[in-house]
């Protein structure tokens, strides 16, 4: 009689996920995972499982799904190789602070530590790249552990968590009773903002003449994009973004002044060292943003607001470090601030921007003759989609150009591997983005190198008929490494040149339509055919082999030493 309401651990995992409003899982089955997959078979109507072709793909897809949907991603893999294949994807989500719940299967608990078949110590392996992890060895633990996992993954500074579930815990039974978590005593995800911090911020802003606002990924993660807009509208403080902060503010906003960093825009990089006040909002002063730290923001006082206390004064010492949710900060400061940025400071951005437009943008986006430049394709696609597509990139030149030349309008529309710089991220992330936003156009910009790293996911794109628009810029080079070899290794192109397959033919083998573009005149027609096609589409575009991405802050140089050409 008492056992009537008992369910297995495997079923409890799925029920717990459903209690957290999860309806989509990316994963791949295997021996130790079989009890869970058996339950997926019978829960098919309430939970959609996307079967990938390699676990790394599941991890990237789950992350991109989380970024576009605002829900945490969920990813399943079996023990041993299934789980280790996730590591790159977990690390990627960790460095970019994306909430993903990874659930890996494990050998039966009695075999733990014995080098059993397909046993790997996933707790130790994933420890440095997860926000939290836990090994479940009995079915009773499952609801509480999943509740904790969701709480840790989605609150404070978000991040990936991993739950390793032994096979006997999946098969064991429990009385299911799910309770989500509201607070944990060792963990404070919502630090209280002090009045004194707001007072000081207002007075620092009031006494500045050349303020610069740096908006990071934290704006998007906190859902503070409307606050950012209001603050910028009201104060006219020029707003620059980090790579991960792209799409936090519309690029047609009058006070949006471009992207920071190594391949960012000319004006915000140069003027970082002219500013007398920097307001760093939900960003972490990554080395790709700051260049030489000793010569970074040399004239500026710095207000740094971040939800992660460990980021405050980590790379850059701030004058006012505020440990807070960026949304709370804006909500508190907006009603009180009356500051207006002097027009002549804003003008300096416009002047430098015109120089970049003339010397770089025009050449990249309107080359007129010669081989095709990736920039012109991205720019044209941006116009054709009105800046409203979800753009996914791989890593390297395609990524930097997609960040620079697509004109992002809406929040969370650039999905890119920022912190880890994972080649091969693009295709699986595009899948995840499309699953999360089925009605949006999802465009993948990738290169011939990165695309081949996870090319097997074309099988997944085909299976679920995910209408992603795949644009491969094929220069037969690992373009960004080649650029560095040209600039710093006297063109010694060591192992960066690679022959490529016929990509449209490869797509055809997977049942995906595509075409090859070699000539500039074919571009508009091919883009239209791609956008109008109802299913997935692959466009291979042969581009200039030795094109470089500029502007560039050379390694070890200061932000204001950014150059427009080699």
């Amino acid at each position, binding site marked *: 009689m008492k056992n009537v309401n008992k369910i297995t651990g495997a079923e409890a995992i799925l029920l717990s996920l459903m209690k957290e409003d999860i309806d989509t899982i990316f994963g791949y089955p295997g021996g130790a995972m079989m009890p869970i997959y058996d339950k997926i078979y019978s829960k098919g109507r309430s939970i959609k499982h996307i079967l990938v072709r390699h676990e790394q793909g599941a991890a990237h897809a789950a992350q991109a799904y989380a970024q576009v949907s605002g829900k945490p991603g969920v990813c399943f893999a079996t023990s041993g190789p299934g789980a280790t294949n996730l590591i790159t994807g977990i690390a990627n989500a960790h460095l970019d602070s994306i909430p993903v719940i990874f659930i890996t299967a494990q050998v039966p608990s009695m075999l733990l530590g014995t080098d059993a078949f397909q046993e790997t110590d996933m707790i130790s392996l994933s420890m440095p790249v997860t926000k939290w*992890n836990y090994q479940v060895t009995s079915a009773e633990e499952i609801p509480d552990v999943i509740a904790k996992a969701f709480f840790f993954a989605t609150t404070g500074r978000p991040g990936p968590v991993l739950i390793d579930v032994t096979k006997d815990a999946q098969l064991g039974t429990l009385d299911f009773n799910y309770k*989500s978590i509201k607070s944990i005593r060792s963990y404070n995800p919502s630090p209280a903002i002090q009045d004194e911090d707001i007072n000081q911020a207002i007075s620092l802003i009031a006494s500045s003449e050349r303020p610069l606002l740096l908006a990071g990924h934290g704006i998007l993660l906190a859902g503070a994009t409307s606050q950012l807009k209001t603050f910028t509208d009201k104060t006219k403080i020029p707003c620059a973004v980090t790579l991960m902060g792209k799409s936090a503010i519309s690029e047609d906003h009058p006070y949006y002044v471009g992207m920071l960093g190594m391949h960012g825009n000319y004006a915000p990089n140069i003027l970082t060292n002219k500013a007398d006040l920097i307001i760093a909002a939900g960003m972490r002063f990554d080395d790709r943003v700051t260049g030489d730290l000793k010569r970074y923001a040399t004239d500026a006082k710095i207000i740094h607001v971040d939800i992660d206390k460990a980021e405050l004064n980590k790379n850059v010492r701030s004058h006012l470090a505020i440990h807070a949710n960026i949304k709370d900060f804006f909500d508190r400061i907006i009603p009180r601030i009356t500051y207006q940025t002097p027009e002549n400071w804003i003008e300096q951005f416009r002047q430098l921007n015109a120089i970049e437009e003339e010397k770089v943008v025009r050449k990249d986006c309107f080359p007129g003759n010669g081989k095709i430049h990736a920039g012109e394709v991205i720019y044209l696609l941006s116009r054709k989609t009105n800046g409203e597509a979800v753009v996914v990139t791989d890593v390297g030149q395609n990524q930097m150009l997609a960040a620079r030349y697509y004109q992002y309008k809406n929040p969370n529309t650039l999905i890119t591997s920022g912190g880890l710089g994972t080649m091969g991220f693009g295709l699986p992330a595009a899948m995840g983005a499309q699953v999360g936003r089925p009605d949006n156009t999802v465009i993948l910009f990738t290169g011939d190198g990165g695309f081949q790293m996870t090319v097997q996911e074309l099988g997944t794109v085909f299976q679920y008929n995910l209408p992603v628009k795949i644009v491969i810029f094929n220069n037969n080079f690992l373009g960004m490494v080649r650029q560095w070899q040209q600039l710093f290794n006297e063109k010694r192109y060591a192992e960066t040149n690679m022959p490529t397959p016929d990509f449209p033919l490869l797509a055809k083998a997977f049942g995906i339509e595509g075409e090859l573009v070699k000539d500039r005149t074919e571009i508009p027609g091919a883009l239209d055919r791609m956008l109008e096609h109802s299913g997935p589409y692959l466009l291979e575009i042969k581009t200039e082999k030795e094109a470089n991405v500029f502007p560039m802050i050379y390694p070890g140089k200061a932000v204001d030493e950014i150059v427009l050409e080699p």
Partner: protein
Amino acid sequence: MKNTYTITAFSENHIGLLNRITIVFTRRHINIESLTVSSTEVKGIHRFTIVVEDTEEQVVKVVNQVEKLPEVLRAEWYLNDEIIYREIALYKIPIDVAIDKNIEQIMREFNAHMVDIQDGFVIIENTGHVEDTEKLYEVLKPYGILQFVRSGRISISKQKKELSTYLNELPVNEYVKE
């Protein structure tokens, strides 16, 4: 400037936390001079006492990264003059040496005491700073030390507030029932 810092962290008593905490140090290539983990007066909460030689700047960053771990309740750092600290040392010496009258005098001077007598050897215990237990080692060495062992540092801060007072102010874990 490098200095000796004692870092204390309080955490939930969960498997793997030691690993998580030490990763923060190894990532930054900081060598842990001494490490002691033990249960506190509050059930389910463990105390880590970690001694490092580094700059204040590095130590602050490490402490923040330790405190950031979701299951760490609090982490703090101290200079030597802000804490009372001790290491315990045990010395195993041959019994025929122990009956030498010098040993009695040495133990008196060092405030050491004998904790066990076995067939053939005795065990002497001494508590103090590393320099103290080191000095006793040097003094006993000529008599022949069979074995020597020293613990990691334990420390107590000079500030008034007790851990349990602080912990009692923390909210308890809250669950929401469906």
